[in-house]
């Protein structure tokens, strides 16, 4: 925002308190992510809106088409239902539908993820839903370092970027350089390098899979753990290259299983690297249910390191 006056923030309570008599910038977003920006950039660039997702997301789309670089915050990705037309039919399609004459430098930041007992309407991971739509880019960072690099990349990108932030990770601590840096989309990162099995994941699931990798190493099973970073574009090449070496693939994803992201990766690998596979592809996902409220059920819902280990054991045992 210091670098480019055209970058604005727009959303619900992203300052919090605008126009009231108490503290202005009281919240900085419901999770405090944008706290302090209102004081530096003012109400002209940190714009609190009424609770009306269709209008302010659509306003961000129109502003992006006409010269601003808006960063809209959708409080929870579950609220996509309240503004979906502006994403599905407008932001995603303008460049193509208008013959390449429009740029859409728009970022929509949104929370995802279960684990807070926030139940079925505040816990979903809807990245696959948006990945299905041509014209959108879809990103999910796995650490503070990744979050900064990918977010700066998103802001400077000239396409609409859907930026998923797992709400369980806001308190994560990690090394982050002070200076600006960007991480390109569609270039996966290798978290660990091993020759026995390939594990692919996104966001918080990368950290959860890494816990499994540490346990597996104690049993002399060496895994390559790939942080995919973005689902659109997707680094299919890195996944397939790794599977060519290991012959075994486990995909860990927090989205629903049917027509889901894990299923998409499995299909791509099955069609592009079938000859390398030594075992059926395993997918670690939630069951095909809404997200339950009770902590005991929610833990049953979520993937965990034990399930990743079970899946790895299954692909390792196959054919032996």
């Amino acid at each position, binding site marked *: 925002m210091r670098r480019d006056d055209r970058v604005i923030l727009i959303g619900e309570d992203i300052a919090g308190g605008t126009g009231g008599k108490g503290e202005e910038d009281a919240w900085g977003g419901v999770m405090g992510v944008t706290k302090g920006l209102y004081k530096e950039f003012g109400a002209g660039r940190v714009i609190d809106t*009424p609770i009306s997702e269709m209008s302010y997301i659509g306003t961000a*789309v129109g502003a992006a088409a006409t010269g601003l670089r808006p960063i809209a915050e959708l409080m929870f990705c579950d609220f996509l239902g309240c503004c979906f037309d502006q994403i599905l039919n407008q932001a995603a399609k303008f460049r193509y539908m208008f013959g390449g004459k429009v740029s859409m430098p728009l970022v929509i930041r949104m929370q995802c993820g279960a684990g807070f007992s926030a139940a079925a309407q505040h816990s979903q991971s809807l990245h696959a839903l948006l990945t299905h739509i041509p014209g959108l880019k879809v990103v999910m960072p796995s650490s503070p370092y990744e979050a900064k690099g990918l977010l700066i990349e998103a802001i400077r990108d000239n396409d609409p970027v859907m930026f998923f932030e797992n709400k369980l990770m806001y308190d994560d601590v990690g090394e982050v350089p002070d200076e600006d840096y960007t991480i390109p989309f569609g270039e996966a990162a290798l978290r660990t390098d091993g020759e026995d099995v390939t594990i692919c994941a996104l966001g918080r699931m990368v950290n959860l899979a890494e816990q499994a990798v540490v346990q597996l190493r104690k049993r002399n099973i060496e895994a390559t753990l790939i942080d995919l970073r973005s689902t659109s574009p997707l680094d299919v090449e890195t996944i397939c290259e790794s599977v060519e070496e290991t012959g075994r693939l486990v995909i860990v994803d927090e989205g629903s299983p049917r027509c889901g992201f894990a299923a998409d990766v499995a299909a791509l690998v099955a069609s592009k690297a079938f000859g390398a596979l030594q075992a059926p592809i395993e997918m670690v996902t939630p069951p095909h249910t809404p997200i339950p409220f009770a902590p005991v059920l929610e833990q049953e819902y979520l993937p965990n390191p034990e399930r990743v280990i079970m899946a790895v054991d299954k692909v390792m045992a196959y054919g032996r």
Partner: protein
Amino acid sequence: MQLNREDLHDAYRRMVLVREFENQIHRLNEKGELPGFIHLSAGQEASCVGICMNLQEDDYITSTHRGHGHVLAKGCDLVEMMDEVFAKRTGICHGKGGSMHMADLEKGILGANGIVGAGVPLAAGAALTSKTLGKDSISVVFFGDGAYNEGATLETMNLAKVLNLPLLFALEDNGWGEATPSSYAIGGDILKRAEGFGIPAQAVDGHDYCAVYEAAGDMISQIRAGGGPRFLHLDVYRYFGHFEGDAATYRPKGEVEKHQKERDCIMILRAYIIESGLLAESDLHKIHKEVLSEVEAAVDHARKAPSPEASDILTNVYATY
């Protein structure tokens, strides 16, 4: 009233251009020459032209699925539009948009739109750009009586008021949301609804070019001066069905013909111009003739223009990917 000879000449020309463009598209479609869904706005010309004659090049508009008139009135190129309707590579959207998605950002046209009400928040976004960058440009959202009941419209009326956006809501009420009368579908009073959002609202006879031009001009001046959003209710009438091929049996027999005879907006402007003495009947005749040959030339051009290449299917999905 600030109507001078040049403005009237321009306005009449633009209205006739929209009318003849629509009539031509209707004939071409009946002959089976055009692909896709087509919605025509013939009959509603005083609204789009009366408003757009008040706009600067850097002002923005968003339009509807019935958008040819708005887009032509804001200055989109006739030949490129015709090429687009014919799905040609030389079309304004290179054959990827068609009738429902005409757009020209360089002219401030954020597109016709196939989703009812979707242009309303988009226009608010363009207005936010003007406000944020300190420009004196404004936005006009053209929307129909059907869109007046969409959540996107109602949410945006509130948002535009809250953010004091330079935005004119132009409700073109042609009496029919597809096949359902607006009198059935709109609950409550149209102007009072807008006023309930704190937006100054006014009704104008959308068949009367001079009345539209004047009312829109006043509101646009207020908006440009920082007064925030305004709402204009235009009573208009469409001659063709909702879409091309719609027999429009929901309208009583003879209604269209009666309207064309008594309330046609081009007929009304023509009478005004001749009575005012600013232009002679022969001038208007000449305009009509010129427009007809321009439209004919555009059709010839479109027929001969190249179709998209198969490889075009993959271009312009993303800037980078």
